[in-house]
């Protein structure tokens, strides 16, 4: 802003203090993962990379990470597809039930996960479907749909429908117009939506606890192991390694979404 003064509130200081508070606990976890003790006590006990070395030999932990990866890829793909269809239907078609469809796609965001957990649990019990990674994947797809829908809706609403009409005037069918005109423009946003859904699923625990069978996802595995104080450093080391991956994804999402405003 040019030409008007500010209050003297030290907002920059507040923001920096906030960042310090946000990063301090995460930094401590990082320190803890190199600390040669199973409690986080000061003074620290010495430097070790032992915990990281044990992650590699920890079969169940790696299996759980792989499970989470599979579930997250599948549910992100499904949720992004559903979100894209909802966005197209709502913005490019007029029909009765448009509001209902939008509400159904958004509402999973507004129901506490413990309630959704119970809901899915009862669904699979009633259908006599054994709980497994598949049931977790279904649950995660539903909770990721609102994120995909909102992200894609926001971008598609800024896209002139005349583009599709022009493509169709030139002889493209509607599906071809969507594939060859809308999707290329929407590409980065679709990827951002997919990555957001991926993270939502990868990190999700409250629903997964209700839905896992014998094969745990990574957060459920971690949750189950937390009772054993001795194993804590290895668990944290494993989680820190995965954290680096999700942080990279988040930076990527933010960059993809910035690009769309150009």
């Amino acid at each position: 802003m040019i030409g008007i003064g500010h209050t003297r509130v030290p907002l920059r200081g507040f923001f920096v203090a906030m960042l310090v508070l946000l990063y301090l606990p995460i930094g401590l976890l990082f320190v803890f993962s190199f600390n040669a003790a199973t409690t986080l006590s000061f003074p620290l006990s010495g430097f070790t990379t032992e915990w990281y070395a044990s992650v590699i030999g920890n079969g169940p932990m790696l299996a759980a990470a792989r499970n989470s990866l599979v579930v997250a890829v599948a549910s992100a793909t499904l949720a992004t597809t559903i979100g894209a269809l909802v966005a197209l239907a709502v913005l490019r078609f007029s029909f009765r039930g448009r509001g209902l469809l939008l509400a159904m796609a958004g509402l999973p965001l507004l129901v506490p996960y413990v309630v959704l957990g119970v809901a899915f649990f009862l669904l699979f019990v009633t259908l006599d479907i054994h709980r497994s990674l598949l049931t977790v994947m279904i649950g995660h797809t539903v909770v990721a749909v609102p994120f995909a829908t909102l992200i894609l809706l926001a971008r598609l609403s800024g896209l002139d429908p005349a583009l599709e009409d022009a493509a169709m005037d030139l002889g493209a069918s509607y599906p071809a117009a969507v594939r060859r005109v809308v999707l290329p423009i929407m590409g980065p946003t679709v990827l951002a939506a997919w990555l957001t859904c991926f993270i939502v699923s990868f990190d999700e625990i409250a629903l997964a606890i209700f839905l896992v069978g014998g094969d745990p996802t990574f957060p459920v595995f971690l949750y189950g192991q937390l009772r054993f104080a001795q194993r804590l450093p290895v668990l944290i080391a494993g989680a820190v390694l995965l954290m680096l991956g999700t942080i990279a994804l988040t930076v990527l999402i933010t960059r993809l979404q910035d690009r769309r405003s150009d």
Partner: protein
Amino acid sequence: MIGRRGLLKFVAGPPFVVLAAFFIVPLVLIAAFSFREGSGVLGPSDGWAPTTEHYAEVLSTPAFMRLLGLSVLTASIIAVLATVLAYPVAYFLTFRAGRRAPLYLILLLIPFAVSYLLRVMAWKLMLGPEGGINSLLAALGLTDEPLQLLLYSRPAVIITLVYIWIPFAALPIYAAMQRIERHHLEAAADLGAGPWARFWRVTVPLSLPGALATFFLVFIPTVGEYVTPDLVGGTDGIMYGNIIQGFFTRSANWPLGSAMAMIMLVLTLVVVAIALRIIDVRRVAG
């Protein structure tokens, strides 16, 4: 709009079917189970005689109702704290950060990308009797024995969840502030309003929908929390969600648990309805 009509069923059909089957039907099943006679584990063929006894039991058990009230109170405190702390952050990003705003935004959001469970663990490690805060206080000679009240308490739940939600809480407020026309602030300045007058009479009213959206978007998931209370809350910090989860695991009682879940669902939908009344959704969603 030529050649599209026939495609509607392929575009709107799949999401309708998927969301009806895997979102609406499961919620209806909670209602069905909550009005079902019996207790414990009930299979599909165990009889569906209707009853309201489970609701009567929940409503007449003071411990359940007390926990429901405490959960609403705890979630409200967490949502208010997260909103109040995130507001200046969003203000800084919008009006003071200038060209570096995108970088600062990424810095703010990175902690949100760190696993939820990991961030809860960080606080458990810090608040514990042999944890970071206590051992630091002892090492500095400030305390002789560990402060016991830090971990396994309601304040521990509140601190942990406020910490978890702050980065996300800034986003709806930031979005609302970005839409404030700079002309409005300049006009106010031209008319003689000082920085504080402009803040209270222009910025606050125009960013209020964002702040309210933040409050509700934090309140709703938090009121049903059971993982964080389980990890850092101890027996003093448990919430309504822990009881619901218990009825589907340790002490299986599906109809009673369903009645409790139903009460929470109705409560949340009422809160959502109130939120939609006071927030103009189209302005928040852009």
